[in-house]
């Protein structure tokens, strides 16, 4: 596939027509599968991709979903951290080690959930690392890694989640975004491009899958998160922001849950969250 450029002009129109026809056929199949699937009435689970320690957005969302009675898949890169999170939650949680940059690893996660017999109630994509750097110091590899980790992983998670949700006829897919998704600041080119790409993916998916009953939303985190990651790296920085000057992961998780609970007649696609004294 690499040698055969995908962007050659010939055959594009026909390919689109073919895709659209396949989509129509699949929609019919989805409808049939949906009926079968709903008859099965399988138990529902929540999935958090990019859950680190218990005190981070991913960990807190997993805890919130478990508190509401859902079995939770806690997937992340650091086995130690996700096991700590799973242990804290208890029997409802399953820790799955996953590398968001690796499509196979994401495919395995969703295959496993299907094998375990769960429908997907809530899927959260919470991946991203912000490393500020001057533009001329960014290497092509760094740019690519940022895209693969933060944005391409969003495409992969969406592909698996939406395939299942399309059969189910319900489900919520949430993305953790950042203020960088709205504004590319100096020094944040790699992070901003990936997060802006992810945001546009979320919008396209919301418009495409919303009418099927699938809620896709994008949460913009504008500020520092008072989580374990920053506590360990720069505790002084958090202290300097003062009391409630950084976002509390548990409070963020409550918002994720509220968005998930919204009635289909009143859906949020985008919500921004920042501490009351954040300068923005």
């Amino acid at each position, binding site marked *: 596939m690499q040698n055969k450029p995908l962007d050659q002009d010939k055959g*594009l129109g026909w*390919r689109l027509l073919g895709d659209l026809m396949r989509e129509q056929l699949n929609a019919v199949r989805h409808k049939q599968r949906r009926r079968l699937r709903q008859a099965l009435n399988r138990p529902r689970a929540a999935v958090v991709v990019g859950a680190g320690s218990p005190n981070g957005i991913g960990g807190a969302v997993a805890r919130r979903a478990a508190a509401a009675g859902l079995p939770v898949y806690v997937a992340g890169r650091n086995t130690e951290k996700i096991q700590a999170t799973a242990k804290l939650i208890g029997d409802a949680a399953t820790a799955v080690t996953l590398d968001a940059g690796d499509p196979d690893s994401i495919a395995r996660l969703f295959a496993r959930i299907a094998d375990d017999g769960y429908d997907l109630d809530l899927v959260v994509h919470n991946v991203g690392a912000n490393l500020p750097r001057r533009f001329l110091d960014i290497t092509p590899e760094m740019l690519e890694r940022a895209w693969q980790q933060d944005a391409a992983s969003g495409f992969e998670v969406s592909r698996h989640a939406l395939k299942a949700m399309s059969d189910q006829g319900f489900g919520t897919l949430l993305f953790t975004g950042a203020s960088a998704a709205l504004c590319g600041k100096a020094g944040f080119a790699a992070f901003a491009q990936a997060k802006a790409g992810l945001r546009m993916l979320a919008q396209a998916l919301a418009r495409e899958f919303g009418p099927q009953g699938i809620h896709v939303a994008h949460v913009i985190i504008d500020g520092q998160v008072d989580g374990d990651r920053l506590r360990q790296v720069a505790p002084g920085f958090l202290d300097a922001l003062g009391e409630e000057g950084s976002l509390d992961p548990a409070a963020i998780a409550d918002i994720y849950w509220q968005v998930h609970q919204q009635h289909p007649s009143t859906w949020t696609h985008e919500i921004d969250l920042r501490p009351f004294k954040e300068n923005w």
Partner: protein
Amino acid sequence: MTKSAAVIVGVGERQGIGGAVACLAAANGLHVFVGGRTQAKLDAIVSEIQRDGGKATAVVLDCTKPADIDRLFSIVDKSGLPLSLIVYNTGRNIPAPFLESNRALEDGHWRRCVYGAFLVSQHAIRRQLHNPQDTAGRGSILFTGASASLRGKPLFAGFSAAKAALRAMAQSIAREFGPQGIHVAHVVIDGLVDGAIVRSFGAGLGQLALGRKGSGGALLPDEVAKSFWMLHQQPRTAWTHELDLRPYKESF
């Protein structure tokens, strides 16, 4: 007399934004280096420019290959001309329903729209920072965006993610290098371009779309090029970072 150089990456047929910008820049006295995938298309543009008394050089390249971009800029360096204008104009809008899309397709969008722009920008900035600064700054870097840069619509998940990523990167570059005299701008093309790509889009879909827009309903490449040139001419005390262009009857 040619005093400086322009690099236009993403040039195809003469009837396209890249081709139109190249011709306009050459008509205004720049030596234009046109980069694109197809030798024959580039040659046609170079010979038109030369016929009209301008200077142009064709460089066949794949914008996603670092080696090709390196080669492009080494050819520019050999001319000894300072680089005043860069236009990055690649990206192909290939619609696909999300569940029929695949990683290779999405990756291709990102490579054409963002990765190539990144490679070109770094080369350009490293050179432009050495240009003397005048009232127009040291030079311009212009990116072609799309309405998909601002709005993700069904069928366009991969394309709009890549275009939005390009927009964010352009902003970041503008904020970092604006104060150093490099004018970075992002042009949002909101509408159908009445160019070679759309006219020849397969299965008659392109012609159908143009027909439905009616007269004056699609952007004319030569008119779009004038806006690019206007951006390049702006004095540094009044710079545009983002400019949107659409036909008068486009709904938005």
